[in-house]
């Protein structure tokens, strides 16, 4: 399939990535190469094959409902790029 600018833009939006104009051609080419590469899978007939969903054989792995493993607010906010003593902060999300 053909990779066009629209597809690259759609994917970038979904992935929250942005490319400078000079990078766009390169990324488009790379993506085209990679997608053409994975299209090789179409050669295989997989009719009637169940997709493999999980690598582990385990089922029903559960834990008891106990309160443990918490960290303090200080520890939690320690690495925050923008914060005050209580919250993580982000640009205002515009709401009506």
């Amino acid at each position, binding site marked *: 399939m053909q990779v066009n600018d629209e*597809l*690259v833009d*759609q*994917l*970038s939006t*979904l*992935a*929250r*990535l*942005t*490319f400078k104009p000079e990078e766009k051609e390169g*990324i488009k080419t*790379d*993506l085209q*190469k*990679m*997608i053409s*590469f*994975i*299209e*090789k*899978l*179409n*050669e*295989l007939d*997989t009719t009637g*094959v*169940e*997709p*493999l*969903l*999980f*690598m*582990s*054989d*385990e089922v029903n*792995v559960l*834990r008891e409902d106990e309160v443990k493993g918490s*960290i303090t607010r200080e*520890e*939690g906010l*320690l*690495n*925050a*790029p*923008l914060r005050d003593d209580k919250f*993580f902060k*982000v*640009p205002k*999300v*515009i709401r009506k």
Partner: protein
Amino acid sequence: MNGQTTCVEAVRHYLDKISASSHLNAWLEVYEVEALETAALLDKQRHSGSPLGRLHGVIVGIKDVICHKDHKVSAASRVLENFTSVYSATATDRLLADEAIIIGRQNCDEFAMGSSNENSAYGPVRNAIDEERVPGGSSGGSAVAVQAGMCMVSLGSDTGGSVRQPADFCGIVGMKPSYGSISRYGLIAYASSFDQIGILAKNVDDVKLVLDVIAGADEFDSTVKQKPSHIPALKKSYRFCYFQNALEHSSLDPTISEEIKGFIKKLTGEGHTVEPVAFDLLDYIVPTYYVLTTAEASSNLSRYDGVKYGYRNSNKENNLNELYQQTRSEGFGPEVKRRILLGTFVLSAGYFDAYFTKAQKVRRLLVDKTLKIFEEYDAIILPTVPTPAYKIGEKKDPVEIFLADIYTVYANLVGIPAISLPLFKNDKGLPFGLQLMSSQNNELHLLSLSKLLINLRFSGK
């Protein structure tokens, strides 16, 4: 490992080695003070007669994707440049509980994505055997550290060969256990159904020792096997197989092919059976691998958004979406971004069935095929990598780089344990290994077979 030396002396020795080899860029951080303090404490405990931990005084390096409480970890990325972990990986905890000394964190490809350690935000790592060449990746730093005697053992991570391939390029042992063998809690995720912590060392005994300590059930990881590994039954002779087309593959260096064929003859000479098996799916394993790993990675890396931790673009005029876009685009390197885009593509509406579901079906075929193989054979033999270490900067095309993973991704796709054994050198003195794989949950068997092969190779017969 040496009964005569004190821990402090050992640490000093390795710190000196690290300094002398700093140009190899294997380490992102060296914990000089802390390692010496720990060593002193261990020496004191030993003198007072306390029972020794199984890894007492063993000097370990950990790849920059394994968390260590109150220490920085960055996945060799700018996006986590000054991030300090507030908890330790289960593997880290277990190493420390058994009295290992963690001497530093090791350079790698960014988010473990790469096969040459040229994708680190902190510069490439150099192969000690030939400093113009790559050490392999993504656990390049971990491999070079062991190769150049800068630590005794390294913990790396292996998603598509990232422990075995650098072990191959660096002439050491590199092992990836079964999926679900070692807890992934604290391993920075790349592809959740492929990732495993792996062990790099000079010999198989050291690998086994570390595996015993860090593997096993863990309350924090739901995908860890609840049952321990099988204890192997010893036999006089074993049945090995190899993929017919693998040894004839167009990408395989003829020297490697010849050496391995020669070694196969040796094995049969010893009374073992070594047979080719048809493996029609060989050319589909790399595309399958890249569809599934990039898909999982595109999701696993969404958390790097500049909100809770890590790098954030500082432009105060940014709205929320701009913040995300700038932060992620500036924080991630090009290879990571490429893979995120590909992963986003295969998961998106309209393409999901054709690519993601398709790849999951091929994975099922591979698992089924693997089960059949192990009904008849004890182990699979393959090359580890089609070529030995290449020059830094030599390979640029992403797909060409993907294709070199052809022998290693198989084990991650089907969850079986695999090891690269440093059996050979080419005429330039560049090492290359042999890869051995056993069935799931059979790593102990794999390790004992490994010793058998090494003994055979170096026995002078």
